[in-house]
């Protein structure tokens, strides 16, 4: 354990330690955290070791790999083996999110922190039940209180949300502007899209500014 005094620790040993840590951990471990755990100052060495391990699993055709998720790394089985694993767990996995839950989660993910009223203004429906479901599943949490009437609770997504969708970080979210463009293209495929009328000046024209 005590390697003080020796030069640099053997790369292979660091690899094995990281492998053991990833195996033992139930949450993704960040490169910085791994570095401090194995006692090296360099996250570069950690990343190199992770790369070597991932390559090794792939080349050796193992049933799992290392994935980057929620700002860290974790061992994960390959999608090909979902069948055999689900036989092991027999429906013990949590249910999928419903459409209202997904919509609400999407709004929170892009607009956080956001109050329930603001979410409801976008969805046009009451979101009480959906919010408590999402909180129960720990995908969102109350992050503070807003300034409005009654100091409403503000909601934000959790680290578990990133894990749930397998996102590396928030930059990994689908690009909203990209989604909007996709619509413009879909509409064009459907039928020629009449260019939108110039929206009233002064009135929020940000959304369709590019299309004018």
């Amino acid at each position: 354990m005590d390697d003080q005094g020796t030069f640099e620790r053997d790369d292979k040993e660091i690899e094995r330690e990281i492998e053991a840590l990833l195996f033992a951990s139930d949450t993704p471990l960040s490169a910085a955290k791994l570095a401090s755990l194995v006692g090296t100052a360099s996250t570069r060495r950690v990343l190199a070791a992770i790369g070597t391990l991932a390559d090794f699993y792939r080349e050796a055709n193992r049933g799992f790999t290392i994935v980057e998720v929620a700002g860290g790394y974790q061992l994960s089985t390959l999608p090909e083996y979902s069948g055999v694993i689900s036989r092991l767990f027999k429906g013990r996995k949590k249910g999928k999110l419903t459409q209202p839950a997904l919509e609400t989660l999407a709004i929170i993910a892009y607009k956080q922190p956001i109050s329930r009223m603001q979410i409801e203004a976008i969805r046009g429906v009451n979101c009480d039940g959906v919010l408590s479901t999402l909180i129960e599943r720990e995908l969102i949490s109350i992050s503070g209180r807003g300034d409005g009437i009654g100091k409403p609770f503000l909601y934000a997504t959790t680290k578990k949300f990133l894990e749930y969708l397998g996102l590396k970080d928030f930059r990994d979210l689908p690009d909203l502007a990209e989604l909007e463009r996709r619509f413009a293209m879909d509409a064009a495929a459907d039928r020629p899209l009449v260019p939108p009328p110039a929206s009233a000046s002064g009135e929020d024209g940000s959304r369709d500014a590019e299309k004018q």
Partner: protein
Amino acid sequence: MTYHVRLMQFEGPLDLLLHLIRRDKINIYDIPISHITREYLASLEIMQELELEVAGEFFVMAATLMRIKSQMLLPRHEAIDEGEIDPRDELVRNLLEYRTFKEAAHCFAAREEDRRKVYQRPMMKPSEEEAGEAPVEVTVYDLLEALKGVLKNLSGQAIYHIIPESVTVEQKIEAIRGSLARRSEVLFTELFGAAINKIEIIVTFLAILEMIKLQEIVARQMSHGEDIWLYRSATGSYIEAGGTQDG
């Protein structure tokens, strides 16, 4: 008589409108408002005929559509050509924004599906001292354990005279609501800070249990044996119910 109704579940009025817009291949930037209003109302009628529960929001939207329709009929010559505001603008903005998030939700669903095919190490901790980052649900036993701690603190103080019961569970619930209205979370032990006798401590404890039962609050802790925090649950709506709405 047989109906051939493809039963569609609409998430809300905007969802229904988007469906009609897609179905009738309507240009979302230039919605023929009397057509869409007619179709929208017809859809509501069908939903009611099928005895589906039609949420109030659907009727609010119906009113909005009729308002826009009437505004469109008003003579508009007095409006300055350039600065004229289309009565449909706000609705269109809402529709576009909602549509974008609906699409994002589709992306989320696809990612969820992918993610469900892979498995990670299960949630289990080798020992209790390694605290997780996500708070865990508090059990009744945790609460009782915490109560024991509070009572032990009290027994250290020498109080010999008996004070008649002056606090009711209802009053305590109000007090806890008050604390949680000011702050997003409250430490379990904090709620007992002002309690001077055993009865008040127990009344406070009962109030907490009652509120948890009513799902007004939730109790969480970082890991078992740690401080218990109480949060207002998202389902609790007493503030809205009691609040007055001045325009």
